[in-house]
């Protein structure tokens, strides 16, 4: 046992018990700090980067605010939230089980291809509400189906799901492209794209935000309820924390893995339906927004809590809506936003680490790091 664990232990023992309310408030504050500080640090580092590129950081961030929130732009941001929230809900479910579904791009695009392929015909043949329900379910089903092989391989043989979901994602992207060029191709245009939807999702009265956002909020609430208030959610969490304990507990792990995958894929499929039916209206080959890549950080920042992810997604929607325009104004590549998201992730892991060390009352540096820092200075004693 190292000395620091002992001193840490005595510190813990000496601490007086605090009333439950303060503890709870403290924990909330702690969570808030751990979530907001990485974002602030990333914006700061991004500002330095902007300065280095010869842009004015405050003007850039101000431009994001202007074009993402002011003058009704918040409605565009809110519209973008719908697919983001659904993907976040899907990723939250699977990450809680400590399983990596990294095939969201393939699941999303396949769902999108089917919706934009069957949508234009269906909205004219049956009542709009029925068409929308069918299309949402269809996209969800395809998304879920596309996780089935990785899920079964993981459940039966323990095959690494990172490989299999990525493989299925590449296949799904190609397959979507084949569908758009083949059976779903709009014969009136030589361009490789589907027919444009004549009827889209209706707007929420008084706004230009489509009702897909309400679907997304409902999905987030359901996921949160299931994860925190049902035995299925508890079993999922136990499996994520310790699969061996879960097996001793009598949990049917293979089945739980498969169901978690299916739910995750279903949510990603719903996101595709919301995006196509509410905003895009059609799909071209080569269109791959890769929403999931930028959503992952916020799912982690929300500490895998489906409700806590909402403010982060709202923040990111503003940044992405305003950022597209701000980047164009500053004649920067819009991929600058990817840098910001990457920085948020990096700072998040660091802050998380510092918080964990502080809780344990230990030094911020691991023994390995201290040794590595000291190694160049201290010569090793020959024994």
């Amino acid at each position, binding site marked *: 046992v190292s000395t620091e664990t002992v001193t840490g232990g005595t510190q813990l023992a000496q601490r007086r018990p605090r009333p439950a309310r303060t503890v709870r408030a403290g924990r909330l504050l702690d969570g808030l700090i751990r979530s907001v500080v990485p974002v602030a640090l990333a914006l700061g580092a991004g500002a330095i980067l902007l300065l280095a590129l010869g842009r004015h950081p405050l003007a850039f961030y101000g431009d994001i605010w202007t074009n993402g929130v002011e003058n009704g732009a918040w409605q565009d941001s809110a519209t973008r939230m719908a697919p983001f929230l659904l993907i976040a809900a899907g990723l939250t479910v699977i990450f809680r089980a400590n399983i990596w579904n990294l095939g969201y791009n393939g699941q999303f695009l396949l769902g999108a291809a089917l919706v934009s392929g069957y949508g234009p015909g269906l909205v004219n043949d049956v009542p709009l509400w029925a068409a929308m329900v069918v299309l949402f379910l269809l996209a969800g089903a395809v998304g879920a189906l596309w996780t089935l092989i990785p899920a079964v391989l993981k459940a039966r043989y323990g095959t*690494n799901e*990172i490989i299999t979901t990525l493989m299925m994602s590449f296949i799904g992207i190609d397959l979507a492209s084949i569908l758009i060029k083949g059976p779903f191709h709009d014969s009136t245009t030589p361009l490789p794209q589907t027919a444009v939807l004549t009827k889209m999702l209706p707007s929420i009265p008084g706004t230009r935000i489509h009702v897909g956002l309400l679907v997304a909020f409902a999905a987030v609430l359901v996921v949160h309820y299931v994860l925190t208030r049902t035995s299925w959610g508890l079993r999922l969490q136990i499996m994520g924390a310790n699969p061996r304990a879960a097996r001793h507990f009598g949990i049917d792990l293979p089945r739980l893995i498969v169901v978690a995958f299916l739910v995750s894929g279903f949510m990603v499929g719903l996101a595709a339906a919301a995006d196509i039916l509410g905003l895009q209206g059609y799909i071209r080959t080569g269109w791959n927004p890769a929403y999931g*890549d930028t959503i992952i950080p916020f799912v982690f920042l929300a500490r895998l809590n489906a409700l806590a992810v909402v403010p982060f997604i709202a923040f990111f929607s503003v940044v992405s809506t305003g950022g597209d325009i701000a980047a164009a104004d500053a004649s920067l590549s819009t991929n600058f936003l990817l840098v910001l998201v990457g920085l948020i992730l990096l700072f998040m892991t660091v802050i998380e680490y510092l918080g964990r060390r502080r809780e344990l009352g230990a030094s911020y540096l691991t023994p390995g790091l201290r040794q*590595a820092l000291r190694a160049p200075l201290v010569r090793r004693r020959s024994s």
Partner: protein
Amino acid sequence: VILASQVWTQVFWTSVLAGGLLAGVPLMFTALGEAISERAGVLNIGLEGMMLVGAYAGFLGAYYGHSMWFGYLAGMGAGMLASCFMVVLCVWLGLDQIVVGIAITLAGEGITSVLYQSQFSETQPRLGGIHTAPIPMLDRIPVLGKTINGEFPLFSQPLLVYLGLAFAVLLAWVFRSTNIGLNLRAAGERPEALDAAGISVVATRSYAALATGALAGLGGAYLAIAGTGGFQDFLTQGQGYMAIVIAMLARGRPIAVVVFSLMFGIALSLSGLLQIAGINLSPEVVHMLPFAAIIVALMLFARRAYLPPALALPYVRGAR
């Protein structure tokens, strides 16, 4: 003009091999890097970002240095720089390797695009031709000397390709028969045993992660300099992820990495060749084939992809 029948009999298959080599070499370098770090217990999901950073730096080096060797060196340096994040955050501090890897990929995609657009968006310069080193005698074989699509002839490749193949053989020997290889493998299989033997797990993994960054950067640089002759946003198109899969399927064995990389390279280059040969198979179908093949293989031989037990787990001395 080459007639279709001629294409099938003669030049086509040489072109397939040569194209596979051209597209496979970046994958090979990157996957060899991933094999090193996976064996040492570091899962590097950030390969895509490291490749892109290496590709951009390689492009800059070759463009301003007027030599592909400057480019390769710059690519390796940039890849190592990117992997420093991995070393400090994951190996030293024990943070989540997958989260940091995703962060490196995102930041790498973003920063290369931003820098390229701000410097070269108007000009979009191309790099000059690449010097190749013909193998004496073999390069005179008439049939094998021609290619359709501007690939390097089979026996007249850039020097780096020969060096890379030699490196793979060297690496196989290092893994099998040297102490360094033993230490690397122990860091992934049973780090506490390596620690008990008096060798630092942290240092071993750090060197492995740095080597991965250098090789991924080199792979990216080769892709930009020899493969496409220039840079563009998202140049690698998921090849970093492919490299991870190759390393996992090859179970970290360097020679198997080379073979798998060439197979993937052939699949990547085949679609263009088939179109030139007048076969109207959709490029997506061809592009999809290797992935579909892997999924089928995984379903049939489900335990093929072996991973070291300590992969992606930070090493904490004394923890159980």
